[in-house]
Every structure is written in structure tokens, then in C-alpha cells.
């Protein structure tokens, strides 16, 4: 992949020379990359008419925030900010600090507002399972009845902070069927499915704000590390019986930061790691806990630490590894690659409201940190940060994203607030590189909250939740970094539902384009494979033109050859996956 980095640099160089802006020095390509103007630099500011830069993506659709989810007098109003996305069938569920919106994307180029539902309380992050919609509420203004009047009383039975559960079987009239109160409210949450338990789903609550009074909710405590009843230093686990969601309740409050001596505050206690390092927050909360039920693992981005949890017992997650990073301010989110051999953590330095992608900001601060996962041990490999500097008027830092299911590769679409959307490859965890991007200029000539909260691949498109501007839909376009075959194959990894922080393993049907996608990836990986790739492509072409027994024989022979090639290949797993696809094609599956 070093090769691709070089190609990329060469590309930016030649473009810059064409427009006459190239730096005079012919230093290392890496340095050139840092100093060459990127099309994302210097975009015009504007709420609805900002300048844009786009590469290897196509903006398929944009829709503004609907009425009641926008404040015309204050484009950056936190109270109506868009937040996270969830997906089911042809529906996109978009959270907002003031409620949620449901978009029908049967035709992705024309999203239609199906439902908008006012229910304030922030952040409004959502998950969906069947006809149940889950929503996080953390603010003290949140009300059980979804009212907009707030709850000024310091202790009130009207207040709601926790996870709401709506029945959305009638999309026109979502009905709140449960409201699970928690001490710190729910900043965000993770829907957890248990492969061994089809009767229930679970929710991991991430509470990050002020614990409330025990007079309002029994058992809550603002105590510190020495208080064994403290509402800090834990997560909450909600059990949701699918046949009776109204009975949802907290069933455990795991002390996942405890040390072996039983100290509940056993991990990073906050502060710098030495002179000149980043100041890292205290580990008294998890922000995102990303679960991968099929692996029985979760990766927690927990303020001061990245942690790894064994969730084979969903109700009682057990910490099995933890890492610190002197460049991280606040561990925010985590993403496994598809085979679970890599974990990508993000650092939300500045809390998402500060400009942290300026040319003067260090590239390893406010970035992704990529770890390899061997057995049950995490090891740091590299950082990836949005490669184009942003202005001081743009809140920008690493934020939410998801995998794009290109066979044989680890590719992610990621939101960077006003830094836009960046699509990048981290197949080799020590050598990430950018594939595509979209960026708008600042919301305003002042710093106001805005930009992409999340960017997720769902069933063929990338959906971006824009905090201040609405919803964007993108399609990938072929480039030297991603072929038409690879894009077509990604679309074949069918998705019927997708939730943030809940990873399902992608699989691909036996299809010629899937085989070709593997070959394209392998050919790009190593130029020496050029003849090998040409041979395999020719064999696939011949087989596809043939029919019946002739095709079966050709494919069987190719599969056998590829199985042999896989042995001892540096890309053994990928060649084996290609062989398996060809073998399945031969069997007509």
C-alpha cells in the first residue's frame, strides 16, 4: 500500500502543477502532500451555499433539515442539532437533539420525509430493531412525555434521562412503549444482540454527563472513585424482552474499569502522560462501545482508554485488554474491521465543537488510532487524520463512520464534522490512505456548530447526517484507489438493518464481480502480481462466457489453482477468499 500512497502524492503533485500552484521544492513526496493545496482548502463559507470539494464520490441527494428541527435565527443551535443515523429496509432514522426524523430512501436520490417526531433531550442517537426504535436522552430538559417545556424543577417525576423505546409499527405515529431511566442519562447507546438469545435484545447505556440526585432516581450518586455506589465508572445494561418491550429494565451496571483489587476506578485517571503530551480525560465513562456479537467482543472507547471487552455474556461484559495513547484527548468511538483483526479508535479532541483540523494542529491529535488485534491483545499501528487542513471557523475532529464492504479490503467512510466526509483504506493497519472525500466550506465566517455527525455506508450508498444542514447521500465513483468491480461488489453485501456501534459480519454472494473485486484489490496491492492478475481475469472472463458444464469445469480448475496460490502468498487470506468465491461460483451458488 506504500505504492498507493506514492501514487496519491504524485497525483496531487501533477494536479497542482497544472494549475500552477505547485511548491517549487522537489522534496519527498510525503512532504509535498503536506504542502500542496488541497481542493478542500479555501472553500467559500455559507449555511446553504457553501463552496464544495468532492473527489471519487458523487453527491446523489441533499435534503435540508425539516421544520421544527432548524432554528432560522441560529444555524448552530445545539437544541435542534442533527445527530446519529440508523437504518432499516428503505428507511433512514435520523436523530436530532429535538427528536428524530424518518426518511424514506427507496429512491436514494430523492429522500422523502416519512415522519418527524419532536421529543427533546439530546443527543437523540438512535438504534432500530424490528419495530422498536431506541433513543438516547441525556439532558435535564428531557421529559417523559416528550414535551418541549423542559423540567425546571431540580427533582421531578416528569424528567426523563435514559433510553426511550418507541414502537414504530405505525410509522405515522411512533408510540413510546418504555423509558428506561438512568443516573447520568444516555449520551449514546449500543444495541446489543445476543446470538444465543433470540427472545431479548440488550442496550449498553453510555452516560457521560452529570449524575442526578438520588431524590430523583434512587441509587444515583455523584461520588468519586472511593464511592462504591458511584454512578460514574460504569455502564448500564438494559434487557429488552422483544415480546414485552414495556418491561425493559436495567439488569446490570458493570464496573468495567475496575482493577483486580476491586477499585472501581482502575484505569486512566486523567491528565497528561508527561511533558508535551496530550491531556487525556479520566476513564469514568465509555463513549461508544462497539459490539461485534458474532466475535463475542466489544471495543470500548472510554474517555481515557481504549478497552476490549469479552461480551460472550452480554449482561456481564469482562474487560480483557486496555490501551492508552499519549496523543489522545478523549477516546470516542471504535470500529472493528470485518474479520476482527484490526480496531480503529477515534479521538474526539475538542469535544466536536472546536476547530481541531487546522494546519497547525498535530496530525496525530484528534485522529484515528489504528490497532491490530492479535488474539485478545491490541497493538498500536498508525494514525489517520483528515489529510486536508480546515479553517478555525470549522469544528473538526475524527467522528463517526462505518465500514464499506469491499471484499478483501478494510475501507471506512467517516464523518469529520465540518471537515466533511473522508473515505479511506486501512487494510494494512500501518498504512492507511484516503480514497475519496466531500467537504463544504464553513457554515459561517464564525465558528458555529455544524458538519457531519456521522457518515455510514448502507446498502449501496453513504449517508451523511449533517448537524446543521440536513441529510446527504453519496455514491462512490471508480478511481485508481477503488475499481468499479469493487464498488459493485460492495453493493452486493446486502444489509437489511444497520445500527451505529453494532457490527455484523459482511458476506458476499458468489458472483463474478465479487471475484473480480478481489483480483482488483490484489493487483493494486503489488504491481508484481500484474501477470497473475491478468491470467485470473482472463480465466474469469472465459468462464463467464461459457455455460453449463464448461463453465463449471473452468471455474473448478481456476479455484483449484487459486487454492494452491493462496498457500505461502503474502496475501494468503485474500487469495483464499477469492478461491472460495470461485469455488462457490463453480457449484452454481
Amino acid at each position, binding site marked *: 500500500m506504500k505504492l498507493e500512497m506514492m501514487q496519491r502524492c504524485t497525483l496531487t503533485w501533477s494536479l497542482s502543477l497544472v494549475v500552477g500552484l505547485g511548491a517549487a521544492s522537489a522534496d519527498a513526496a510525503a512532504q509535498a502532500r503536506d504542502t500542496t493545496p488541497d481542493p478542500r482548502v479555501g472553500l467559500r463559507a455559507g449555511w446553504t451555499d457553501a463552496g464544495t470539494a468532492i473527489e471519487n464520490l458523487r453527491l446523489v441527494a441533499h435534503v435540508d433539515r425539516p421544520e421544527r428541527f432548524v432554528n432560522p435565527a441560529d444555524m448552530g443551535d445545539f437544541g435542534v442539532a442533527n445527530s446519529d443515523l440508523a437504518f432499516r429496509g428503505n428507511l433512514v432514522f435520523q436523530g436530532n437533539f429535538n427528536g428524530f426524523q424518518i426518511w424514506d430512501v427507496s429512491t436514494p436520490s430523492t429522500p422523502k420525509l416519512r415522519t418527524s417526531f419532536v421529543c427533546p433531550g439530546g443527543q437523540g442517537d438512535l438504534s432500530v430493531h424490528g419495530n422498536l426504535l431506541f433513543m438516547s436522552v441525556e439532558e435535564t430538559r428531557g421529559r417523559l412525555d416528550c414535551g418541549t417545556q423542559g423540567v425546571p424543577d431540580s427533582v421531578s417525576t416528569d424528567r426523563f434521562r435514559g433510553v426511550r423505546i418507541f414502537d414504530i409499527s405505525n410509522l405515522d405515529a411512533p408510540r413510546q412503549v418504555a423509558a428506561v431511566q438512568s443516573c447520568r442519562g444516555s449520551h449514546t447507546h449500543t444495541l446489543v444482540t445476543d446470538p444465543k438469545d433470540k427472545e431479548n435484545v440488550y442496550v449498553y447505556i453510555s452516560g457521560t454527563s452529570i449524575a442526578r440526585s438520588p431524590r430523583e432516581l434512587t441509587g444515583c450518586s455523584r461520588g468519586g472513585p472511593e464511592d462504591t455506589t458511584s454512578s460514574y465508572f460504569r455502564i448500564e445494561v438494559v434487557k429488552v424482552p422483544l415480546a414485552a418491550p414495556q418491561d425493559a429494565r436495567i439488569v446490570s451496571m458493570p464496573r468495567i474499569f475496575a482493577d483486580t483489587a476491586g477499585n472501581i476506578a482502575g484505569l486512566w*485517571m486523567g491528565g497528561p502522560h508527561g511533558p508535551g503530551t496530550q491531556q487525556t480525560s479520566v476513564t469514568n465513562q465509555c463513549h461508544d462501545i462497539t459490539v461485534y456479537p458474532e466475535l463475542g467482543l466489544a471495543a470500548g472507547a472510554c474517555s481515557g482508554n481504549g478497552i476490549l471487552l469479552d461480551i460472550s455474556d452480554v449482561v456481564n461484559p469482562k474487560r480483557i485488554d486496555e490501551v492508552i495513547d499519549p496523543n489522545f484527548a478523549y477516546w470516542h468511538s471504535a470500529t472493528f474491521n470485518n474479520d476482527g483483526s484490526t480496531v480503529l479508535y477515534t479521538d474526539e479532541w475538542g469535544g466536536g*465543537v472546536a476547530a481541531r483540523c487546522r494546519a497547525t494542529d498535530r496530525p496525530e491529535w484528534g485522529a484515528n488510532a489504528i490497532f491490530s488485534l492479535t488474539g485478545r491483545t491490541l497493538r498500536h499501528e498508525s494514525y489517520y487524520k483528515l489529510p486536508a487542513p480546515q479553517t478555525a471557523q470549522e469544528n473538526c475532529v475524527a467522528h463517526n463512520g462505518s465500514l464499506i464492504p469491499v471484499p478483501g479490503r478494510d475501507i471506512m467512510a467517516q464523518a469529520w464534522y465540518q471537515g466533511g466526509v473522508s473515505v479511506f483504506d486501512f487494510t494494512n493497519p500501518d498504512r492507511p490512505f484516503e480514497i475519496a472525500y466531500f467537504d463544504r466550506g464553513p457554515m459561517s465566517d464564525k465558528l458555529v456548530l455544524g458538519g457531519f455527525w456521522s457518515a455510514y455506508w448502507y446498502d449501496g450508498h453513504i449517508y451523511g447526517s449533517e448537524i446543521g444542514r440536513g441529510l446527504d447521500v453519496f455514491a462512490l465513483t471508480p478511481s485508481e484507489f477503488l475499481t468499479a468491480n469493487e464498488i459493485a461488489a460492495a453493493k452486493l453485501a446486502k444489509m437489511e438493518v444497520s445500527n451505529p456501534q453494532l457490527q455484523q459480519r459482511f458476506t458476499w454472494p458468489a458472483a463474478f464481480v465479487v471475484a473480480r473485486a478481489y483480483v482488483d484489490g490484489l493487483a493494486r496491492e503489488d504491481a508484481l502480481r500484474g501477470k497473475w492478475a491478468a491470467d485470473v481475469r482472463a480465466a474469469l472472463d472465459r468462464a463467464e462466457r461459457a455455460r453449463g458444464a464448461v463453465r463449471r469445469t473452468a471455474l473448478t480448475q481456476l479455484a483449484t489453482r487459486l487454492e494452491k496460490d493462496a498457500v505461502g502468498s503474502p496475501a494468503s487470506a485474500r487469495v483464499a477468499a477469492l478461491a472460495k468465491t470461485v469455488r462457490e461460483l463453480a457449484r452454481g451458488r
Partner: protein
Amino acid sequence: MHAPLLRGLRRSVAVVAVGAATACAPAPAPESGPAPAAADTAHQHHAPASAQAADSVSADVRFLQHMIPHHAQALAMTALVPSRTTRTDVRMIAERITVSQRDEIATMQRWLEARGAAVPPVDTADAVRAAARHAGMAGMLTPDQLNQLAAARGPEFDRLFLTYMIQHHRGAVTMVAELLSAGGAQEPQLFGIASEVESDQLMEIARMERILATMPSASPDR
């Protein structure tokens, strides 16, 4: 997004204040009138113009107008550290406090500005006079305590600095609790600010208590 605050900014207070004070400004603020009215104007589309809501916003404005001078005293205290200590851990916690309090001040100023409310000055030059003026606030060091701290050196300074900063930070945590008791923090960004102030102070208190635990309980000459 985990907190509507500027974390870890390493610019000077002046730069932060200028940048932050102008940011996030919604529609022009009314020329005069109480701050709550200004806030209600900006938020009328989704916030009720009820008396209760106005009370909540008054509590928010009061909270910030107190918290800014409260934070300013912490900056005055940390400014004493480099010339009076030899301990790396004390320097590092002081640096941490400086960074977090500066960031929070900038955000608080921005919130007040955007609502046309009075923004109190950050007075670190004459900290003793400021201490006298704000003597009623929870945790504020008295002028005598400040003078005692400024006069101390070495281990005595370290112990006093941590003791007084813990007192000061506990005061801020109390102020957050009072804000909630007064029905404040209904506005989403203010809720985030209060959350952040509380979590930063609690974390720093815990850290200072651990450093203090490594020191003799009093200097040998006592």
C-alpha cells in the same frame, strides 16, 4: 459530540476569547433589556416563553457570570506555580487546570455574548481584589489565602496550592449543583457546559488528592 466545550486549546486566553466571543452569535441581540429576554428571542421556535423557562435562563446567565470570575481565580493560582514549585506532578496538574479553565471561560463568554448578556472580565492581574469582590462564591480563596499562597515556596507552596485548588474546585462543583437546584441548564449547550465543568473539576480534584497523599501532611517547621 461529547461536550460543547473547547478542550485542550493551547492558545493564549486573549486569542481564545476573541475567537470565541464572536462565534456562535445568532440574530443580533437586543440593544438593551435583560438577558433572559434575549435568550428567549433566539430560542422561541422550540423553547416556551414561559416564566419557568425565563427563570431557567436567568439561572444559567447567573451561573456563567459567577463561574467566569471563579475560573479566573484558578488561572491566577496556576500562574503562581512555575516560579514556586520544583515538582513535575504539580506543574502538570497546574497546566491541565490552566488549559481546561481557559477553554471553559472561552465557551462561557461565547454563550453569554450570543445572548446579549453581560460578560464579566477575566481579571487575573489583580487577583486579590477580585477575591475580595467575589468573596461570597463557593470555594473562592480569600485575599488572605491568596496572599499566603503567593508568599509560599517549595513544599509548603505545593501543599497549599493543592489544598486551596481542591477547595476552589469543590466550590465549582457546588455551583453546578446549585444551578441544577435552581432549575437551570435546560438549554442544551449550557447543560453541556455545566456537565463539562463538573467532570473536569472532579477529575482534577481526584488527581490533586492523589498528589497530596504523597506529601507530608504539613511542612516540617510546623
